[in-house]
């Protein structure tokens, strides 16, 4: 053990640092990583974050207002939750509105590969946010969570577009009513 310690002393000398002081209130690895991720987010003009408690950065809401595509004019919010296992485990992401979308089910679960089977610790929150944004621009009929919406998209893009508009204004499609998500621009 003494030999190990003398190596430590030498390493420390090389770094030219002084001894550490008190020993309380350490920041967890997950918090550290989220702080890093947040400072590198690129939100652009269509997204913003909402923190209910600024001290709790492991939980926040992301607001997306697509500025093009079939979901243009809508306002969608997603809850983000990271636990102490982040980034080993992916963030948990849920849509807070009941929406008509091939890749989002009525409970708000999202089918995005990097949120589940393709997540890796080298990915970050920015990758997830870019992925969500992409889902609104290019809904994907081949990986459906809402089967009916996916079939509509596959069979007729025009019909799908009409259904999206109906659902976004709070209408119902085949007996399922959707949340109104239109926002009024100032």
């Amino acid at each position: 053990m003494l030999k190990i310690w003398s190596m430590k002393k030498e390493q420390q000398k090389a770094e030219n640092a002084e001894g550490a002081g008190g020993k309380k209130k350490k920041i967890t690895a997950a918090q550290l990583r989220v702080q890093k991720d947040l400072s590198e987010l690129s939100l652009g003009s269509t997204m913003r974050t909402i923190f209910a408690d600024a001290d709790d950065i492991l939980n926040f809401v992301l607001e997306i207002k697509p500025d093009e595509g079939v979901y243009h004019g809508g306002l969608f919010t997603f809850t983000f939750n990271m636990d102490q296992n982040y980034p080993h485990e992916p963030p948990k992401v849920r849509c807070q509105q009941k929406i008509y979308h091939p890749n989002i089910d009525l409970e708000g679960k999202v089918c995005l590969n990097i949120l589940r089977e393709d997540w890796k610790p080298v990915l970050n929150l920015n990758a997830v946010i870019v992925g969500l944004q992409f889902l609104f621009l290019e809904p994907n009929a081949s990986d459906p969570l809402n089967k009916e919406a996916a079939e509509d998209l596959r069979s007729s893009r025009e019909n799908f577009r009409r259904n999206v508009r109906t659902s976004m204004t709070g209408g119902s499609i085949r007996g399922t009513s959707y949340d109104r998500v239109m926002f009024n621009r100032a």
Partner: protein
Amino acid sequence: MATTAASTGPSRWQYLDKIRRNPGPFNQDSDVGDEALAAQDKAKILVIGAGGLGCEILKDLALSRFKDIHVIDMDTIDISNLNRQFLFRQDDVGKFKAEVAAAFVEKRVKGTKITAHNGRIQDFNEDFYMQFQIVVCGLDSIEARRWINAMLVNMVDMEDQDSLKPLIDGGTEGFKGQTRVIFPTLTPCIECQLDLYTPRAAVPLCTLATIPRQPEHCIEWAHIIAWEEQKPFPNLDKDDPEHITWLYQKASARAQEFGISGVTYSLTQGVVKNIIPAIASTNAIIAASCCNEALKIATTAAPALGFEESYMMYSGDDSIYTSTFKYDKKPDCTVCGEVAKPLQVDPKMTLKELLDSFALKADLQLKKPSIRAEGKTLYMQFPPSIEEQTRPNLEKTLQQDLGLDVGHEVVVTDPAFPTLTFRFILSFV
């Protein structure tokens, strides 16, 4: 069992003593006296986990002349443990693992003291971990490994050489296993090696929702989608047979609908609880390797894993294969990459004054620093909403208004240095 002198008297250790006394190419101390041999009796060693690996580790350590062993485990004994966790008997079902394991080994290896702690590792503080010389982990959770790793890395204090605790981490999964030795802050830590873990095999949600192909898909569908929609019970208890039966029935119905066979009750349990078959012999091999390392570190009888090669992997899948290799420290590791440096500040200073001082410091020169403390966001430059929320903190004083104190850690990031985090431990002028 007939008790012989060899198993109780001091001659019990005669072969171990020979290994330690005889000079050899690896034996670093050529003149080991009785005093040095007896010093091992005083070594205090902590075992985390008293499950499959833990039982083996406790037994091996006791038989390697470690006499003061502590063990932590939060779990109680389940009937399914009995096939491999050999310190437990049917009558022990429901009792704490740590307690039963400790009592069993104490009884069989006379002169060994094992102290059991029935609880979570997170329930204990730095003072508790400081009393040990070596920590051996036989855990099945990555979260617990990361926690103890961060704890031991943060405990290293230049002023106190006893604060550096070698961490020996064993792990098994089916026929595969690993042993690694970590000298916190000196060699790559668990966080540096986080990418090595195979991610849990997950099936795309849309496959579960629309085109299941395997019995597991039907079970996962029942678990993730049907349960949430129907909520037959308020909270899913994976140990409640009634809940598992509900999932099993839902999964069976779905399997029938798609013409899939193979959904059984035990498969349902296995998928929902993510059970990986544990193999007794893999546990025995990995535990033996962990204890070998503990003995080498405690006695310097031979070079241990750690500085050169630090990672031993074992695979028994297809005959037997082991490989020992060197893993590098990650320079930007969030736990050990940037060891917290002391930072002396005036407690009456405002946060803004502190941040401005970072711009002036020659070794920092941070123009857009964001800063957080444990569970507290002091000031973040980005994203805009949190900037607005934390802006009022800029005019507040560090100690009185923001509640920062001596010994608190603060972490500073800056977009100009995306791979760096700057960590400081506060002290006051």
